C-alpha cells in the first residue's frame, strides 16, 4: 500500500524531473569568449543635488544588441534603484542615446534626488540582448563597463545617533547576558556549553565592535573583515564544543556545519575587502552577515540539545539537533547565495534584501521535507519547520532594529550589524536558559509533548536501534 510519504516522494521526484527539464531549456551552456566582452569608461560627478553620469562604450554595435539595455542608479539606502531604458529607437528610450561612430555614449542628469543620494551613489551600466538565452544575457550584463562614483558623506543626524546608541546598548546587553550565562555553565560543570557560550558572546562583542566602527565611517572592507572574524570566533566555539563531545564527529553533517561556518564568512570577508562586492549595497552585506550571525543561536543549540538528550533521548531531542544542524548548513549556504545574487544583480538589491531570508527559509523547509520523504519522522519535519520559522522571525526582529535605525537617517546601514549581534546574543541567552532549566520543565516543552502524544508510535520509531 502506498503511504503518504511515498506519494510525496513520487511527487517530489516528478517535480525535480520537471525542474531539470526546464533548467536545460532555460540555460545556454557555453563559456563566452573574452573577445566578445565590451569595454568602456564611465564618469560620475555630482554636487549634492544633481548627479551627472557619462558612460561611453567602445565598439558598440546597435544591431548586436537589439534588446537594448538599461542603466541603473543604485542609491545607497534607497529601495530599488532608478532604471532608465536604453533602446536604439529614440522614441522608446528614456534617455538620450548616441550610437554613432561605432560607440555608445550616454549623458545622464539626475535632478532632484533625495538628500540621501548625496551620501553615496553607485552607477552601473549594463547591456543585454533580450533575444539571446538568459545565460548569455546575464553574461553580457556583466561584461560591460561598470562605473562608480561616490559623493561626500553627510554627517549623521542626531536622531540617527540616538537610535544607533540604543542599538549598540541593546547589543551590549545581550552579549553581556550571554557571557554571564556562559560562566554560569562553567560553574555548573558543563564546560563545553560554557566555553561555547563565552565564545559566542565574544563573537557578538566583536560584531558589536564592528558595528561601532561602522558608525565611525570606516571602509566597508574593514567592517566585513571584522564581522568575518566574529563569525569565525563563533565557529571556533562550535568546533571546540564538538571536540569536547567526540561522538559528534561520527556524523559528517555535524562537523560539516561548523567547517562551513568557518570558511564562508572568511571567504566573504576576503572578497569584500578585495573589492569584489563593490556594487553591493552596504546594508545588504551587513544584513547577510547578520543573518549568518544569527545562525550562532543554532550553533549553540547544536551543543546544548545533545546534552539534553542524555536525559530526554526518548523524546527525540536528538532529532531536533539533527534538524538544527541541517539548518546551520543551509542557512550558511543560503546567506552566501543571497550575497552572491545581490552582488551580481545590483538593480535588484532591494528585492534580494527582502527576499533573502525567505529564500533561506524556503530552502530549509524544503530540506526538512526532503528528509521526511527519505525516512525521517513526521515529527522531525514539523519540528524543523517550526525551528526554521522561529529562526527567521528572530532574524527579522533583530534586523528590524537595524532598519528602524536606518529609517531615521542614521549615519550608515551598519546599524544592522550590532542589532543582529544583539538579537543573536539575546537568543543565545534564551537557549542557555532552556538548557539549564530543570528536566521536569523540559519535559513540558513542545518538543516533549510532540514526541509523546502528537504522533504516537513515532517516538518508538525514532529510538529504535
Amino acid at each position: 500500500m502506498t503511504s503518504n510519504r511515498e506519494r510525496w516522494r513520487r511527487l517530489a521526484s516528478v517535480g525535480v524531473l520537471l525542474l531539470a527539464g526546464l533548467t536545460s531549456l532555460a540555460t545556454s551552456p557555453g563559456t563566452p569568449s573574452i573577445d566578445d566582452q565590451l569595454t568602456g569608461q564611465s564618469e560620475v560627478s555630482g554636487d549634492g543635488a544633481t548627479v551627472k553620469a557619462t558612460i561611453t562604450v567602445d565598439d558598440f554595435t546597435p544591431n548586436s544588441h537589439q534588446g537594448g539595455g538599461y542603466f541603473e542608479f543604485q542609491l545607497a539606502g534607497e529601495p530599488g534603484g532608478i532604471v532608465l531604458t536604453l533602446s536604439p529607437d529614440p522614441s522608446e528610450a528614456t534617455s538620450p542615446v548616441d550610437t554613432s561612430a561605432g560607440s555608445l555614449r550616454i549623458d545622464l542628469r539626475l535632478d532632484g534626488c533625495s538628500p540621501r543620494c548625496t551620501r553615496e551613489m553607485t552607477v552601473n551600466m549594463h547591456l543585454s540582448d533580450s533575444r539571446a538565452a538568459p545565460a548569455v544575457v546575464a553574461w553580457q550584463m556583466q561584461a560591460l563597463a561598470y562605473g562608480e562614483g561616490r559623493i561626500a558623506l553627510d554627517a549623521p543626524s542626531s536622531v540617527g545617533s540616538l537610535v544607533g546608541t540604543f542599538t549598540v546598548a541593546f547589543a551590549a546587553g545581550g552579549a553581556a547576558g550571554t557571557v554571564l550565562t556562559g560562566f554560569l555553565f562553567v560553574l555548573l560543570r558543563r564546560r563545553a556549553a560554557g566555553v561555547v557560550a563565552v565564545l559566542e558572546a565574544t563573537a557578538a562583542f566583536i560584531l558589536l565592535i564592528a558595528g561601532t566602527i561602522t558608525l565611525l565611517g570606516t571602509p566597508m572592507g574593514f567592517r566585513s573583515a571584522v564581522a568575518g572574524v566574529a563569525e569565525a570566533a563563533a565557529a571556533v566555539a562550535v568546533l571546540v564544543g564538538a571536540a569536547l563531545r567526540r561522538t559528534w564527529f561520527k556524523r559528517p553533517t555535524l562537523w560539516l556545519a561548523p567547517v562551513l561556518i568557518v570558511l564562508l564568512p572568511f571567504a566573504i570577508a576576503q572578497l569584500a575587502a578585495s573589492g569584489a562586492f563593490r556594487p553591493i549595497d552596504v546594508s545588504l552585506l551587513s544584513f547577510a552577515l547578520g543573518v549568518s550571525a544569527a545562525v550562532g543561536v543554532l550553533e549553540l543549540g547544536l551543543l546544548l540539545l545533545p546534552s539534553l538528550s542524555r536525559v530526554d533521548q526518548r523524546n527525540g531531542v536528538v532529532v531536533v539537533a539533527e534538524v538544527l544542524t541541517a539548518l546551520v548548513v543551509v542557512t550558511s549556504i543560503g546567506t552566501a547565495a543571497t550575497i552572491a545574487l545581490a552582488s551580481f544583480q545590483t538593480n535588484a538589491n532591494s528585492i534580494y534584501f527582502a527576499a533573502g531570508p525567505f529564500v533561506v527559509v524556503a530552502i530549509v523547509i524544503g530540506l526538512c521535507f526532503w528528509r521526511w520523504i527519505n525516512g525521517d519522522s513526521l515529527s522531525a519535519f514539523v519540528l524543523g519547520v517550526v525551528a526554521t520559522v522561529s529562526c527567521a522571525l528572530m532574524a527579522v526582529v533583530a534586523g528590524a532594529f537595524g532598519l528602524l535605525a536606518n529609517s531615521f537617517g542614521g549615519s550608515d546601514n551598519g546599524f544592522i550589524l550590532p542589532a543582529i549581534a544583539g538579537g543573536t546574543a539575546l537568543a543565545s541567552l534564551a537557549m542557555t536558559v532552556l538548557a539549564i532549566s530543570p528536566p521536569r520543565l523540559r519535559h513540558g516543552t513542545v518538543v516533549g509533548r510532540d514526541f509523546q502524544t502528537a504522533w504516537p508510535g513515532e517516538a518508538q520509531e525514532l529510538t529504535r536501534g
Partner: protein
Amino acid sequence: MEAIARRHARPVPADVLLHPIAIASLGLLIVNDHVLKGAFPGPITGKLSDFAGLVIFPLALVATWELLRSLTGRKWMSGRLSIGVAVAVTGAVFAAVKLVPPATALVSELFGVGQWLLTMPADGPLPTRIMTDATDLVALPALLIAYVIVLRRREHGNDV
C-alpha cells in the same frame, strides 16, 4: 545520537533525482548558468555546468524511463543496463556537441525551439548559444557519479 534509526524510505520511480548529489547538481546548474557565468565568465564557470549537467542528465533519463515503466505496470527499478544506456547516450551526445560543429548547431537549434515552445515569443525560435569546445570533455567522468547513484539505489532497494 546512535539511538536514532532512520527508517529507510522504500524506493519509488524516479527517486534517483532525490539523491542529494542530484539535487546539488541541479542547483549548481541553475546558479552557474544564471549567476556565476555572468559574474565570472571563464573556463571554471564554463566547465561547472558541464559537470553538473553530466550528473543530472543521465539521472533524468533514467527517471523518465522508470516513470514510463511504472505507468505501464512493469518492473521499473533501473539496473546496470538502464543506467549504462543513459550514460552512454549522454556521453555520446555531449561529445558530439563539443567536438562536431554541425552537432553543436543542431542542439543549439533544438534548445532554441524548446525555449520558444515555452515562451512563444513573436519573433520565432532563436538558437541558443552553445560552444564547440573539446576541453569541455574533461567533465565526462561526472557520468560515473550518475552510474554509481543508480546502482547504489538498486542495492539499497533490494535491502528494503
